[in-house]
């Protein structure tokens, strides 16, 4: 008797939306098992990982702070993912956005103009979009796979920021640490809630979710991209431009990742360093899928992912677990989501002996 996957005639729509919830539940269960396997009390581990980060208002503000870049990047990526444009390099676009936004802050370091911050946002968006335009160009001109190109550009971006903060942009008074000098106050995003680190980037992220919703669900361009994602031949038949779909998909993801990168250096960090990204660019891919490529879903998925980040920090502190515990949870979440999705579309059949 061997199990065999058999396509379901009519995958349940309800299950399609339930599968992320199921994945979350399984991730929590898996977490309990892992805590137990590491010799920790699972209930205590659960409490430290998932509940203690949210015990006060500061904790909630940290949650929203961590969710902000995830939301921004994921909604941008969703635009492309819905059209089967696979931008895997948001991490690199995030870094280049941070470099561009940070570069403006450093160049105008004496300025107190209120226009400085908007300029930095625009610079971040342009930087990220520029980085994403490389895979778009290579895909449309030479049919180069955008997954590989965008991914490889991540490493180039990491080396680029490394070179900048070790070299030309290094803070001369920074005791040789690989970082720029701190940005001026006029280049720092305003704090939303006194006593926390939650800043205006969160509002930008909410705006991006709204804009993403209108684009994906109300605009004709969004419709065209969805057609391109679901049935390429139909898009061609209807006369929708495949090149425009690829460009739009990649530039949307790049620009949003760039803004997120700018928000990071201009927010909690206040300077550009080598470690500007916390893996947000990759985690946001998981967020986009857990959120079913839907802005409302992405909102909640980014909160969940942010909680995994915070829980990981708490687990380091109070359970003396390694920091990679966060990534284990991210991995479990993606694994269980993909697994649940398989069973939404397929069922197991037990068949006796050889078939055909």
């Amino acid at each position, binding site marked *: 008797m061997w199990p065999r996957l058999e396509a379901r*005639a*009519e995958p349940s729509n309800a299950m399609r939306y339930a599968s992320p919830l199921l994945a979350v539940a399984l991730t929590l269960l898996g977490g309990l098992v892992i805590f137990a396997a590491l010799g920790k009390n699972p209930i205590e581990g659960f409490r430290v990982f998932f509940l203690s980060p949210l015990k006060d208002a500061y904790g909630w503000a940290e949650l929203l702070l961590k969710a902000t870049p995830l939301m921004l990047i994921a909604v941008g990526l969703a635009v492309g993912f819905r059209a089967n444009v696979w931008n895997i390099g948001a991490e690199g676009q995030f870094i280049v956005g941070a470099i561009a936004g940070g570069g403006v802050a450093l160049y105008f370091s004496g300025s107190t103009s209120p226009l400085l911050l908007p300029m930095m946002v625009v610079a971040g968006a342009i930087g990220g979009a520029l980085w994403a335009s490389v895979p778009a160009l290579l895909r449309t001109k030479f049919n180069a796979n955008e997954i590989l190109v965008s991914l490889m550009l991540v490493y180039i971006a990491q080396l680029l920021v490394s070179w900048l903060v070790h070299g030309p942009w290094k803070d001369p008074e920074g005791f040789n640490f690989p970082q720029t000098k701190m940005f001026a106050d006029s280049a720092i995003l305003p704090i939303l809630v006194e006593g926390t680190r939650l800043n205006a980037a969160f509002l930008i992220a909410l705006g991006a979710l709204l804009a993403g919703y*209108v684009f994906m669900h*109300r*605009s*004709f*361009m969004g*419709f065209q991209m*969805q*057609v391109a994602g*679901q*049935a390429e*031949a*139909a898009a*061609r*038949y*209807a*006369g*929708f*431009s495949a090149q425009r779909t690829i460009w739009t998909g990649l530039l949307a993801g790049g620009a949003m990742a760039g803004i997120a990168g700018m928000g990071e250096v201009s927010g909690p960090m206040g300077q550009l360093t080598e470690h500007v990204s916390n893996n947000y660019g990759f985690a946001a891919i998981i967020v986009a899928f857990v959120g079913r490529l839907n802005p409302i879903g992405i909102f909640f998925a980014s909160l969940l992912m942010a909680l995994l980040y915070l829980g990981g920090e708490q687990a380091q502190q109070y359970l003396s677990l390694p920091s990679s515990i966060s990534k284990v949870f991210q991995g479990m979440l993606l694994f269980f989501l993909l697994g649940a999705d398989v069973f939404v579309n397929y069922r197991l059949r037990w068949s006796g002996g050889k*078939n*055909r």
Partner: protein
Amino acid sequence: MKPRLELRGIRKVYPAVVANDGIDLTVMPGEIHAVLGENGAGKSTLMKIIYGVTRQTEGEMFWEGEPVTPANPAHARTLGIGMVFQHFSLFETLTVVENVALALPEAPDLEALSRQIFEVSERYGLPVDPRRLVHALSVGERQRVEIIRCLLQSPKLLIMDEPTSVLTPQAVRKLFETLRKLAAEGCSILYISHKLDEIQELCHTATVLRAGKVTGTCKPAEETPKSMARLMIGKDLPVPQHGVAAEDGEVRLKLAGLSHASDDPFGTDLKDIHLEVRSGEIVGIAGVSGNGQQELMYAVSGEEPLAEKFPVQILAAQAGRMRPGRRRKLGMGFVPEERLGRGAVPRMSLADNALLTAHRRGMLKHGLIDFKAVAAFARECIAKYNVKCGGPEAQAKSLSGGNLQKYIMGREILQQPKLLVVAQPTWGVDVGAAAFIRQALIDLRTSGTAILVISEELDELFEICDRIAVIANGRLSPTKRTAETNVEEIGVWMSGMWPGSESETGESRVA
């Protein structure tokens, strides 16, 4: 005499539909038995049960008197059941003998097998060279390979699924001779079709299915096509109302020396095609499939734009390099042969699928979608074209082939195109819906639209077209008025031999 095959009370239930409901069927040795029915009547499901592809929910199958349930096609073949599918399962990059060898349980000696293939093909009048590569074969020849593959196992029952849909009239006649010879030697044949004249000519008995049930058993020789059609669709077939074709309307589509090399290594290159389609007429292009129809459609629709402008002229505009969107803007409508995935997005609603091509009809405001206008258009299309569905929100893939085709035709016609290009308007569509679609095309033509129809069904072209041309091996014949030609002549042309053609050299793709 013991029946070769007997089915009793076969019932097959799928999650959403009962495909077969209490079907009884008896086939005697040497009998050619037709299974007649519209699309979705349950013919294919029944054949799959007999061939072991799927299993019945209820009911019994007897093979030469013994109860059996074929576990899989290999089991069915050991019983002596062979099947020739509508869509061939051959590897194009392998030779004929290699393809045949692949279906055998053990690796055979290719030399000996070639001799065997040669003998069988001689005996049944199925000429084909075992050493040739399949991609170089015509569709008719490929079908012969499939039949030979079955015959090598000396079947007692041969199932043929819509075998003539890809053949010229002459090739159909040859196939019938082969089948009669087989039957005379005692092989039973189950012949699936919805073509009434063929069944009358060939079959001894017919079992008629409608909506999964047997609605009658008859001797086709004693029936008329009309009486069998009534059994099949439950009512009389409407006769198309013609009306007069406009003479010398303005030229809406002009192909001026269209040549295009196909990207596909197994595709057909278009060679110097000339054609004019005028306002108020239907021009048909006949031909055996794979002779350049697809490539021609892509070139006319703009899905594969050309390098030069002049070879395709749409409403006097040189459109060769335009993409489909711009050609539509000029007033062209277009229905491709693949409905799901090209003419419609399978998992989108009918309303969204209206938006796909009809968005220029006031469905957009500042780049945003006016969902009310979209739904209104979809509802109008559903009502006017009699589309059976769950409403504008129903997914395209939930519709039967015929209903989706009506919807797509309706969507294009409601946009009042000045030029409409249609491929296979009734392919896989049941008889009732096909009559409806043909009438809609004729009405549109009478209202002044120029229509180009590319179809492999000759009867259909003769029914609706004012002029007919033939495409063979990427070349297009001159057009002839339908009234001044006949099936025989067009059939000869389909093998590439029309007056002034250069294919007496035998390079044509037709058997």
